[in-house]
Every structure is written in C-alpha cells, then in structure tokens.
C-alpha cells in the first residue's frame, strides 16, 4: 500500500511548517485519545473477525480486517493526515460498493441457488442432524450373543418389525458407527434357532452367557437408523429415530441409514447409488438436466435433493456454467436476448423521446420576453420533484383498463378503450409515455441551461448569411447543444437502462411470456428480469444465474461508460480543477 504524503496544498513554506509545529505541541492529549479509540475499535474488530471466521464467513472476515488496517493506519500513523478524513468514506465504499461488485462476480461462477446456500461444511453439519423418518421404536427384540476369538462381543437382534441384524457392541452412547459383523440381507435367520457360528463369531450360551453378564449390562449395538439396547440376557429394546446420515470423512462418502445406501460426494452435493426408484422424486427424474441413471427399479447418481428438497447441498465454484447456460439453453437464451433488445430500444428510445420533447419545450420558452415563463417552469418541475415511485403507482391506476382516467378520457372523446397494461405493444407504449412524463422536465431543464450558453452572435451571423430558422437550428443550435449535454444524455441512457422502478411498479415486466425456463415478460428490462430470477418467481432462487446476467450488465455499463468518458473527456476536466 502506498504511503500517503501529507504535504498540504498551501504554497508558502512558512505556512507549511507552522501546522506541523502546532501539531507536535498540541497533539499530545489528542494522540492519547485517538490511540484509546483506535484500541477500542480494534478490540471490537478482532472479536468480529474471530466470530466471522468461526462461522466460515471468510470474505466478511477479510473485509473487517481490511477496514481495521485502514483505520489503524489512518489514525495512528503520524503523517497520514489526508487519510484521517478519507477513511470513513473509503471504508464504506470498499465494503458497500466495491466488494459487492467483486462478490457478485464471484457468485456468478458458483452454483449458488435454493438448495445450495450453505458452505460445504455447514451443509454436511446440517445433514448429520437429519433424523430417520421411518421405523418404529420400542419393539422388544429377541437377542443372541456372539463372541469371536479376540473376545469381541456381538449381538444378533431381530423381531416382528425388525429384520435380523448382527453387530459388534458400540463403545458408548456417542459412538454412532455401524459395526455389522456379518451381512444378513438375503440370509434366512431363525431367531428361535440361531446359527452356532457367523463369520468367525460363536454363539454364547448357558454359563458362558451368564459370565458375560457384566459386559452386557446396559450394552448396545447400533442398527440402521437407531440402536438396540440390552434388556435381559435374551432380549434387547430397539430405539429407532436416530440420525439418518453418517459421514465417512476419509472416503468422503455419506452413508444413508434410512435407505441403506452410500452416497459419494460430487458437485454441490452427495450422489447416492442404488436408490430404489420409488424414493426418487418424479420431478427430478423427468427434469431435462437430470443425470440420474435408473435400471431395474434402482437408481444411481441420485443427488440428495432429488430424494428430499430439504436436504441441503453446498455452494461450490462451477466455472463458466452459468454463462454457458445463458448462451446454450434455448429457454433462457431466447428470453435473455428478447429482454436485452427491448432494454436497449427502451433506454435509447426514451432518451431520444424525452430529449426531443424537452428541447422543443426549451426552444418554445426561450424568448426572454415571454410572459408567465417562470410559471411554466415551475409547473414543469412538478413531475421531476414528485418521488418517482409515487407517480408511477399513480400512473398505473390512471392506465387501469376498467376504471382508469386515461380510458375515461378516451371514452369521452368517443375513442375505444385501450387495454394498456395487458397487451405487449400497448404496455410498451405506456412505458414510454409514463417515462416521458417522468423524464421530460430534466431534459427541459438541461436544454434551457445549454441554450442560454449558445452565443446569440452565432445565430445572428447565420441569419445575416441567409440561413432559415430550421437551418440555423440544425447547423448551429443542435450541434452546440449536443456538445454540452452529451455527458448528461449518456447518464440518462445508463439510468434508463436500469430503470427498474418504472418497469417493476408500472407493468411488473408484464404481460408475461410463457414457455421459458425463467420468468419473463414483454416489458422486462434486464434488471427486472434478473430480480425475478433471483427472487424465485420461477423455480426457487437462481442466484448464480441472476448474478451471471448482472455481470453481463456490468460489462455493458463499463463499455458504455468507457466510450462516454472518451467522448466527453470528463476526467480531464476534473483533474484540471
């Protein structure tokens, strides 16, 4: 980080010297106060960072760290005069303007959407808390005790509702690991006459059983979905409703006790193999982008959310997939380009229309001798001053088909009703009309200002040279006007390009178009289109897809602005203060 210099802009040497002297003399107490305040700030910041780290909110933790460093530098470094003034604003800009842009871009490369809102660790943590949802607790099971050469005890349990199962004793109540010693599925076991040996384990009977009394007291084994606890030497009580999943960290496999299947980790979630087809949700099977493989009633590669929507996946970087989706999926690409086209037409058309109207009005009112000029001006400011959202809501009422006053006006002129907001073309006309009302005062004001700065002599000279009114307007007034208003027109274009409030409140993007994978309407702008995708108007919140479109908007805005900066050389003027 560059070291800031503190040379003030005061020019004479004596004056530069004196504040430093004054500072050194007077700042002893001030420095102490400052140090104490910074120390307090640091304490809070460090506490926050620790908490954020504990929650795995890495980016927010880093952000807090950056702000902390900035504050420490600015208020403790003796020569950081300017940054003392800058730091509050700078910190806010970093956190609430720059970071969101970067983070939005990051999200566009992930699978962040409904179902993938958590980090990987958080998702697994949550999965391990999912309870088993089937089975019955409390059944008294028949129990037989087995023992192997290493003196390990195993219990064979089974009952009317519970299939026979044999497992080694667990270490304690916290031990959730299944320790089956033999695979009994498909083996017929008669619990009244248990086999003498099973996979190296021998049945313990008679005195031998009594001798194991102490080890068996309160002992238990884990069974799929629960545990069976020894009650007597011949019986055990089963408790089901334990936890559904266990995570084998080494293999990174999730073990599903409810379905008795294993689910290796994959992209964004775990994918279970050998799931009975009836367990898989139909919607997941018929979905176009489904990768589930089913054969003979069993399915492989079943993502967890295809079993249950509430089973969490995790957020993960997936590269350019979201951008590829926008380009390659017909049912997203088509509405995207449709919206983009209308967006450009709307922004460009609106600026043109409003500018023409405002300029016309400014020319009309140009004459200094005209009476009531200030009254007109005051009236034209009204649409500009009313908060936009209020006027848009009012306009929507006025444009109502049945009761609206616009149709009432048309009716009284003997014209037929117009279905303003439900017909695509009419809705577009309505959008232009309302935006003209909202925007012409601004254009009128800037054009009035610019017109007064055009030297009268030029127009006079043109008149002497025989130029008519139209010619002198086209050859002199308009070019000069465009030079001075160009940056503002570009600003108006950018503003209207993202004029969310107008569209959202007036038409809500509608009338809606159907048959696409994303919610979209005839008058949607990119930003309202994005908002609906993110707000989950369609199939849950597709945040990542939405951010990909936002990044495309970023790029568009950056290009427009780069061109406009070059056009107006605004930057140079700023530096030449």
């Amino acid at each position, binding site marked *: 980080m560059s*070291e800031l210099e503190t040379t003030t802009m005061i020019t004479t040497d004596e004056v530069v010297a004196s504040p430093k002297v004054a500072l050194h003399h007077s700042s002893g107490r001030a420095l102490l106060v400052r140090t104490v305040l910074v120390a307090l700030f640091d304490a809070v910041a460090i506490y926050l960072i620790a908490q954020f780290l504990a929650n795995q*909110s890495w980016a927010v933790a880093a952000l807090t760290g950056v702000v902390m460093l900035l504050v420490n530098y600015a208020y403790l470094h003796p020569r950081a005069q300017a940054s003392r003034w800058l730091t509050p604003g700078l910190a*806010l800009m970093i956190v609430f303007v720059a970071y969101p842009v970067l983070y939005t871009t990051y999200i566009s490369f992930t699978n962040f959407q409904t179902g993938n809102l958590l980090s990987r660790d958080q998702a697994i943590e949550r999965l391990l808390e999912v309870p088993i949802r089937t089975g019955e607790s409390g059944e008294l099971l028949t129990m037989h005790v087995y023992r192997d050469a290493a003196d390990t005890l195993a219990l064979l349990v089974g009952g009317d509702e519970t299939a026979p199962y044999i497992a080694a004793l667990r270490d304690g109540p916290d031990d959730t690991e299944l320790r089956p010693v033999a695979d009994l599925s498909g083996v017929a076991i008669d619990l009244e006459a248990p086999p003498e040996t099973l996979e190296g384990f021998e049945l313990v009977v008679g005195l031998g059983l009594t001798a194991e009394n102490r080890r068996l007291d309160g002992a238990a084994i884990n069974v799929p979905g629960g545990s069976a606890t020894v009650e007597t030497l011949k019986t055990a009580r089963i408790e089901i409703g334990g936890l559904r999943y266990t995570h084998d960290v080494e293999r990174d496999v999730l073990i599903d006790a409810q379905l008795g299947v294993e689910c290796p980790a994959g992209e964004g979630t775990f994918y279970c193999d050998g799931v009975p087809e009836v367990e898989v949700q139909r919607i997941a099977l018929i979905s176009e982008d489904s990768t589930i493989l089913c054969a003979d009633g069993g399915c492989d590669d079943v993502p967890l959310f295809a079993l249950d929507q509430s089973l969490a996946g995790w957020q993960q970087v997936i590269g350019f997939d979201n951008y590829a989706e926008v380009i390659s999926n017909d049912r997203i690409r088509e509405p995207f380009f449709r919206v983009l086209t209308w967006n450009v037409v709307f922004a460009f058309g609106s600026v043109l229309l409003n500018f023409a109207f405002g300029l016309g009005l400014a020319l009309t009112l140009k004459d200094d001798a005209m009476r009531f000029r200030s009254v007109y001006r005051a009236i034209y400011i009204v649409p500009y001053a009313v908060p936009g959202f209020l006027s848009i809501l009012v306009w929507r009422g006025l444009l109502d088909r049945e*009761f609206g006053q616009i149709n009432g006006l048309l009716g009284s002129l003997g014209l037929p009703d117009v279905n303003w907001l439900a017909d695509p073309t009419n809705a577009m006309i309505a959008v232009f009309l309302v*935006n003209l009302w909202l925007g012409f005062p601004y254009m009128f004001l800037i054009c009035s200002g610019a017109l007064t700065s055009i030297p009268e002599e030029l127009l006079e000279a043109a008149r002497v040279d025989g130029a008519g009114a139209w010619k002198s307007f086209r050859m002199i007034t308009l070019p000069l006007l465009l030079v001075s208003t160009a940056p503002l027109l570009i600003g108006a274009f950018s*503003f209207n390009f993202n004029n969310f409030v107008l569209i959202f*409140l007036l038409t809500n993007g509608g009338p809606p178009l159907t048959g696409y994978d994303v919610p979209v309407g005839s008058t949607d702008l990119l930003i309202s289109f994005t908002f609906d995708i993110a707000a989950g108007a369609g199939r849950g919140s597709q945040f990542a897809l939405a951010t990909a479109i936002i990044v495309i908007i970023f790029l568009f805005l950056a290009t427009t602005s780069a061109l406009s900066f070059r056009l107006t050389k605004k930057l140079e003027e700023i530096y030449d203060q």
Partner: protein
Amino acid sequence: MTSETARPAALPRRRRTFGAWFRRSGGRHLVAILAAIFALYPVVWIISAAFNEANTLASARLIPRNITFENFSGIFDNDVSPVSTWMWNSFYIGLIAATINVLVAAFAAHAFSRFDFRGRRALLTSLLVMQIFPQFLGFIAFFVMSRQIGEVVPAFGFNTHGFLILVYIGGAAGFNAFLLKGFLDTIPKSLDEAATIDGAGALTQFFRIILPLARPMLAVIFMITFIATFSEFILASFLLTESSKDTLPVGLQTFLAEGYNAKWGVLAATALLGAAPIVTVFIIAQKHIIGGLSAGSVKG
C-alpha cells in the same frame, strides 16, 4: 419558428392587439399550456382523489362531490393500511442515512480538496469508475453479506433496518464526495491559511470554516440523498421481508398489488402527503438543486 422572434432586450411595449400578440407568442403559449396540462394531469387527479369522499378508482371524478379528509386519516389507521408505518420507516432510514452520508462525504471531499497525497488521482478515478455500477445491482451480494453479518451482529443482519442504512450510507458516499469536492475547491484556500496562522487546528478549520461555508451545497446534497434513499426500491424489497419493516415504496407496491380500485383514495392521499413537501422545497430551491442534479445524477 425559433430564432426570428428571439429578439434581445424586448422593449417594455404594452400589447397592441390580441391578433398581433397571438401571432407573436400565442403559438408558444399554446405549446407551453399543452405541456403544462400533460405535466399536471396526474397531479390534478391525485389531488382530487385525495379529497374525494367516494374513494375508489371507479368513482373518481375531477371535482369531488364532497370534500373529505377520510383518506388522510386512513393513512394513519392501521386497520386500513400500514402506510404510516412505511412512511415512518422510509423517513427515518432516509434521515439517518442522508445525515451520516453527507458528513462522511464532506470529510472525504475535504481530503481531496485540501490535501495533496500520493494516490489522490487514482482514488478520484476509482470513485468515478465505481459510479458506473449502480449499487442496487449488488443485491444478491448484499443478501449473502447481511446473512453472514447477522449471525454475529443481529442488529445489522438480513431483514434489519440497520444493514439497509449502512448500505445506503456507503452507496452514495462516493458520488457525494465528488460533488462536494467541486464545491470545496471554490472556497478560497487563503481562509484556511489565515486560520492556521491564528492557531486553529485541522478539526477546528473544518468544522468552523469549511462546513459553514459549504452549507448550501450540503443542504442540496442532503436533499438529493434523502429523496433517493426514501424512494429506493430494489435493496429495500430484497433485504427486508416483514411488512412492518417495509419502506414506503415497497409497502405501497405490495399493498396495491391486490388491486387498485378500492385503494385509490389512500394512494392519492399518500402520494400527496409524500410529494407535497418535496415539490415545495424543489420549487423554492430549484436553482441549487438542479445545479446539483444536472452535475451527474439523473432522473427520468
């Protein structure tokens, strides 16, 4: 039709005949009046509907049969609508955000105007560059951020006014610093020098000399920021989920989504109440405000 009538310094000649007057400027007045009707058309309907006893859209008429204030009391009656709650939310959020924002922006502007330091140009440029991206495009990032912060500091988490206020303060700081810097540059540096010689410290200089002199510009920037915050939609709608926490734009939008007809009177009264003070200030202070606005931020 533009230039031949634009005669400089028209003599204070009283009008001769109506015919001559109409030929000279009647056409202009016709255009100006048509534009005025267009500008005032919805406003007239708002005013009439706000005082109309029959307060539905269907029964609206230009001159109400009976004048009533029922629609206004409806705003403050929570059985009719929580409009007053939303107004208060918008008002106090805007007030806090705009106040802190102006102060922070003034600090930064002071640094840019009165100090020369390495990275000054780069910082100014990046302030400008960041203005390219409207802050509301970050709404998804803010959603994630607010949830993460909320786990540690609930007062600034998702669905809190605290977080929204922070976002608003940060959002306008850069641009306002920019506008203010331009204004502070016009305050002569000799004033600072004189104060320095008189032994005034840096803080004293700022609060006693610079800020009072910048008061008109501060007021304008405060107004612009307040109105922008008061009207902001996307972030408020995405980051707040409870109706009782909504700001006025978001609350009104959901309130009206179920149908306009029966709520027309309340909407009109709200619009009148919300807009009247702002319109008044605008007309009184038009020169200052328009100067500030046309320097860059745009509406319409």
